[in-house]
């Protein structure tokens, strides 16, 4: 794209009135997306946003790209049909914890395991917003919501662990109010060839306000958040004096001032072929552990649509020209004379 250098955030802004609640975390994600898109070197007309149903799924309306606001949970399947037939397009799926993990869980896991070259952004606010405040598949047990006045009984899903269970090649986590971190994760997701799965912690200030305050509060977050960097040890804490170590197959918090404990300190390797370490990190949850932010895994394998196109090209090479008469006369034929 020669025009790449010319793209500005305004090129990607649509004229639609935004209908999210004032103060919603979605505004922040949209703002970062508008900043990131012009830097990717892809024209607005070659970019497609596809969403399901829910607050986050209104996202495509607010960008001047191509887009489909689909039906509940089906965005990954919509994206699959588009990407398979138009591999050259940059395709983004926008979903939420209800849309992607509940009604659309089946499509999400199959899109990830197939490994289409798409980016799936899952906005996780641990609540149903658009249907007005029911608990979601990521709500913690005991969550009081309009549909669980006595507390939720469900064990929540861990989105990153689920994606890794599907052998996702790219798995990352960020949060709505960290502009630079989020922008960087979005860029990395775009660069990854294959399905990139990004969980974005997003605040619903109406139905679940402050649920990620532990991660966003500047005063305390250093003790609850660990920013992953490839090749760097897993160190966190206000005084950078704590780390994550391995004890058999268990992760545990270690004190860095203890030389003996320090030996167990883990070093992050996002390119490790086996997803087991990434899975271990994905399963570290607040408040027992700091939670991992950044890229947990970045390992490439062939993209599904490339394999599908290759199969067609091979058939065309070995099968000779595609002639309808040849198709029609395959098998036994006979002539009825005039």
């Amino acid at each position, binding site marked *: 794209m020669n025009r790449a250098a010319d793209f500005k955030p305004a090129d990607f802004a*649509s004229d*639609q009135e935004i209908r999210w609640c004032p103060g919603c975390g979605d505004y922040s994600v949209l703002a970062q997306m508008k900043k990131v898109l012009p830097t990717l070197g892809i*024209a*607005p*007309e*070659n970019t*497609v*946003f596809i969403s399901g*149903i829910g607050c986050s799924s209104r996202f*495509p*309306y607010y*960008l*001047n*790209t*191509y*887009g*489909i*606001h*689909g*039906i509940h949970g*089906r965005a*990954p*399947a*919509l*994206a*699959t*049909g*588009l990407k*398979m*037939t*138009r591999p*050259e*397009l940059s395709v983004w799926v926008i979903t939420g914890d209800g849309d992607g993990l509940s009604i659309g869980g*089946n*499509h999400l896991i*199959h899109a990830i395991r197939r490994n289409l070259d798409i980016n799936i952004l899952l906005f996780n606010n641990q609540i149903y917003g658009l249907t007005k405040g029911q608990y979601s598949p990521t709500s913690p047990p005991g969550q009081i919501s309009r549909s669980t006045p006595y507390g939720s009984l469900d064990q929540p899903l861990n989105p990153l662990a689920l994606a890794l269970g599907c052998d996702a090649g790219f798995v990352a986590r960020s949060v709505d109010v960290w502009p630079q971190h989020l922008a960087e994760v979005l860029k990395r997701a775009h660069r990854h060839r294959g399905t990139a799965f990004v969980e974005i912690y997003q605040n619903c200030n109406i139905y679940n306000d402050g649920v990620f305050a532990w991660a966003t509060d500047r005063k305390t977050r250093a003790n609850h958040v660990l920013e992953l960097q490839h090749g760097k040890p897993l160190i966190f804490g206000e005084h950078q004096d704590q780390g994550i170590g391995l004890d058999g197959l268990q992760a545990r918090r270690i004190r860095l001032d203890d030389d003996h404990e320090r030996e167990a300190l883990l070093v992050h390797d996002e390119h490790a072929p086996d997803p087991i370490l990434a899975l271990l990190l994905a399963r570290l949850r607040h408040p027992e552990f700091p939670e991992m932010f950044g890229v947990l895994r970045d390992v490439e394998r062939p993209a599904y649509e490339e394999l*599908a196109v290759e*199969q*067609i090209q*091979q*058939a*065309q090479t070995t*099968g*000779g*020209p*595609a*002639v*309808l*008469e040849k*198709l*029609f*006369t395959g*098998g*036994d*034929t*006979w*002539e*009825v*004379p*005039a």
Partner: protein
Amino acid sequence: MSSASATAGATPSISVQELESVVVRFAGDSGDGMQLAGTQLTNTSALGGNDVATFPDYPAEIRAPLGTLAGVSGFQVRFASRDILTPGDQVDTLVAMNPAALKSNIGDLKTGGILITDSDAFDSKGLKLAHYAHNPLEDNAVVSSFQHLNAPITRLTREAVADSGIGRKLAARCRNFFAMGLVYWIYERDLEPTVRFIERRFGKDQAVAEADTLALKAGWNFAETSEIPRRHYRVPPAPLAAGRYRNLTGNQALAYGLISAAHRCGKQLFYGSYPITPASDILHELSAHKEFGVMTFQAEDEIAAMTSVIGAAYGGAMAVTASAGPGISLKLEAMGLAVMLELPLLVLNIQRGGPSTGLPTKPEQADLLQALFGRSGEAPLPVLAAASPADCFEIVQEAWQLAVRFMTPVMVLSDAFVASGAEPWRIPSADDLPPIDIEHPTAAEAKGGFQPYQRNQLLARPWALPGTAGLMHRIGGLEKQVDTGNVNYSPDNHAAMTELRANKIAGIAGHIPAQTLQGDPQGELLVVSWGGTYGATAEAVRHCVRAGAKVALCHLRHLNPLPANLAGILARFPQILVPELNNGQLQRLLRDRFLVEAHGLHKVQGRPFSSREIAVRIHALLSGRTSS
């Protein structure tokens, strides 16, 4: 051509009788190779110049317990020296490979017909599995009205193939070929095409190929030397239109039609589907033709199949999905989205017996109202129904033309009977296929401000493709503002959009062929049929017309919108009969739309109509003996 000519002369006592039409049914266990036997007899007869029609009838279970009634698989073939429309009502020759097959099929064998049984299979175990207290072959009441050829087919097959070197168990599995040999002798069928087939299919395992060929010839020779029958039956070639032919099943024809349409309009065919009986063969066929650029996608479920197709259509592909009733139920929400997005795509419903899992392998026409009204909200779309296996080839091309011209999803209805039945198909020249023109707006057209829901004279919106500069737009399931396509909830706008969507589909009536009639256009009774019952209905009407009845046939291809001249046709006839494999869905529709008194003839047995059933009803109505 016929091998019979070489052998018939050798036995002077054997006479030859010429017939116009013959129905043979092979019936046995699911693993007995009855589908293969029937298919081979079909191909051989077609190659010999007959018109053919088939009715494969198999159970949903892959291999139900051996010898049970649940496991009986049948294949009916009709071959004729004239143009035929159905696989026939009554069976002339029944091959029953075991007691269960006899029990479930003997009722269809015509009095005086030929019954061929494998006496080895009628042992105490086989009889018990079929719930026979006594051997029916020894019961005069059961077999006396037929020409009964009761041969130890299993033993004779084992003896015949002994030299091939295959084991005892495999040897017995060649007995379908022995039975075919018997039938081929009786009807002077040529053995050569089947011998060639054996070589093609089993050539890799020479012992098996040799055993099958030996069994086939042994069956032929046995028939020649046995007491029954003492007669050949000859069915001369049918006067089909000149041209090159092949046999084609309905599902194959759908696949070929889709490939042709994509080829003609220069689009990539994207076929997203989830396996379901009886639609899966379309996926199998299409996935084998990637040289045409066909992209097949076996989705994780029916909903994903449908939505993947919407995604592909948005990107500009020729996007198609297919399923059967239960799967269509799952797709309905996404079909509503397709209606809202006004994207061209095809949804094929290969109907089967329902509700729910119902009768997965049996035909029914009970999804018509679902096709018309099954989606939430006012969500009209065009619905077409295929009349026969060969018609499937044409109908998907027509459906695709409508889809792209009017920017709408289109449904095509077939059924288990049409899907798996085969008939001769006159191979078209690719140049004769209808051209399909598609236009996409270009970047230049963005100048005046692009509006994704601005409509042309047909009320169709533009098909703007991602990748086109200046035409970026977002579409979705929320109600859209007229012209702009922006989200809009205003009462007047919703009413206007609902009306626009309805008018667009209704307007298609002005662009489809006028409804035609067969039979007596001034008649006293009009028979209105649709879909796969065409053959039985048309044969019944022809029969009645020949017998002097004043009756006409109106076979509907377009169920939505209905042809513009239909109201006038219905008004002309004093009586109307609507035969359907459901409880009166088209009947209900015609009564509702045209306020006419329409009689119904309903059948929900998982079996197609016989033309006799319909003819009986026609006569009854014309003689004033019945009403409903």
